């Protein structure tokens, strides 16, 4: 068993296709998925919900001191993106220079390698964002 393998596998729908959840009772949307609506709690009714992958930059930074596994990607832009549907998510913004990033700029998801377990372990893919043309 390789560390992180099953962890990633069970999150693939979320990480590949932004499958979150929403509460049918209060219409709140959640990404990542929540099983309990913080507003309605037990009276809530949770169902899967697919996010569009479109949003805008809410805050950003350039990571110059990367953690293990991200060494050669640095410097990379990390942002909190406000998704069109409401929730915020943390993700890298790719194919851009740090100076191109501004709060409010429109972004959309791309499918990328996020981290690989060395050169012999599994590759974990998922969403990142790019600036919209």
């Amino acid at each position, binding site marked *: 068993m390789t560390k992180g393998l099953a*962890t990633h596998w069970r*999150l693939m729908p979320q*990480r590949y296709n932004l499958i979150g959840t929403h509460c049918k009772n209060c219409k709140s949307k959640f990404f*990542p998925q929540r099983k309990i609506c913080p507003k309605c709690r037990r009276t809530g009714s949770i169902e899967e919900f697919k996010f569009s992958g479109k949003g805008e930059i*809410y*805050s*950003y*930074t*350039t*990571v*110059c*001191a*990367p*953690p*293990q596994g*991200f*060494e050669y*990607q640095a410097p*990379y832009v*990390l*942002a*909190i993106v406000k998704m069109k549907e409401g*929730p*915020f*998510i*943390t*993700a*890298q913004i790719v194919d851009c220079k*740090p100076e191109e990033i501004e*709060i409010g700029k429109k972004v959309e998801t791309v499918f990328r390698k*996020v*981290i690989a377990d060395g050169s012999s372990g599994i590759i*974990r893919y*998922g969403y*990142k964002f790019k600036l919209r043309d």
Partner: protein
Amino acid sequence: MSSKVGIIGVGMTKFGELWDRRYRDLIVDAGVDAIKDAGIEGNQIGGMYVGSMSPGLFAEQEHVSALVADYSGLAGIPATRVEAACASGGVALREAYLAVKSGEMDIVVAGGVEKMTDVPTGSAAVALMGAGDQEWEAFKGATFPSLYALMARRHMVEYGTTIEQISQVAVKSHDNASLNENAHYGFKVTLEQVMNSSMVADPLRILHCSGITDGAATVILASEEKAKELVDDPVWIKASALATDTIALHDRKSLSKTEATVLAARKAYKDAEIKPEDVDFAEVHDAFSIAEILAIEALDFCDFGEGGKLTQQGETALKGRIPINPSGGLKGKGHPVGATGIAQAIEAVLQIRGKAGDRQVKGAETGLIHNVGGSGATCVIHILSMEK
């Protein structure tokens, strides 16, 4: 049940790269000093709470509650490990406080310890990132400096806070640390040095970030009756408040206001029956310089958005209106994560006893200590005072 709780003894190791000492050495050294300071015997101790964030990843050791009790020569007593990321120490203090307050125990040890330098920096960063959301922050390449950078960016945009103001926090922390013989980074830095230090996560530079430090700290708590019987100068815990927020930064209501601190502060001020202006000094969680600005605003020492200005005007310096982090804070003193919350309590006790030496805050009677876990998902606040 209605008993007051006092701190009757304190002890801590020097903070730093303590190559010759093991995890268990650190906490035992700090514990022995605290017991000596309280003038008690080990067999008077009713229980022990140890705050430690990640001994498993930093020292390949779990089950540290029993380990610490054992190596303190106290095997047999009830011992509990407390974990709340960087707030582990503060929460251990609270658990010890509640144990005494409830009447279950008369004399309780609250300790905090982290041995961080035995692993490579990259591994330490991974361990620390355990305080965030592994699946939705760490997986995306987030680091703690980068999470605080995301907060700093919003604070700068929403309030016009400048990088000079953020940098001034670090300058002040190092000034204070230079007066603290236990500080890891007891040297002064200039504003220029801070602003030209190497970039970690834009806009935060290395001198805006706390480092990797070993250390331990211990305090002894006692019931009102025991405290009066044992020592002349107990420092009373007037309030203990704990609040939580979302684990991931991106789920917060705001990036520029720390909700858990607001909630915990509100309760602490109410329980202590004081107002923010009654606080003579505070030890706050400045793991990153922006965090101190966020803290002093949420603690209501100034309005939201005014923290940068308050710092720039020198109001948070040792001789200012509300001295913040007289110890040097996490930035200057060092931040061995589990030990930090207890070390904050020790600084408050020394200040209130009037034994803080060159960094003594004049007229320090009431102090507030503020310990944060993660990017703000846990906040624990205590108010300490010489008066009951």
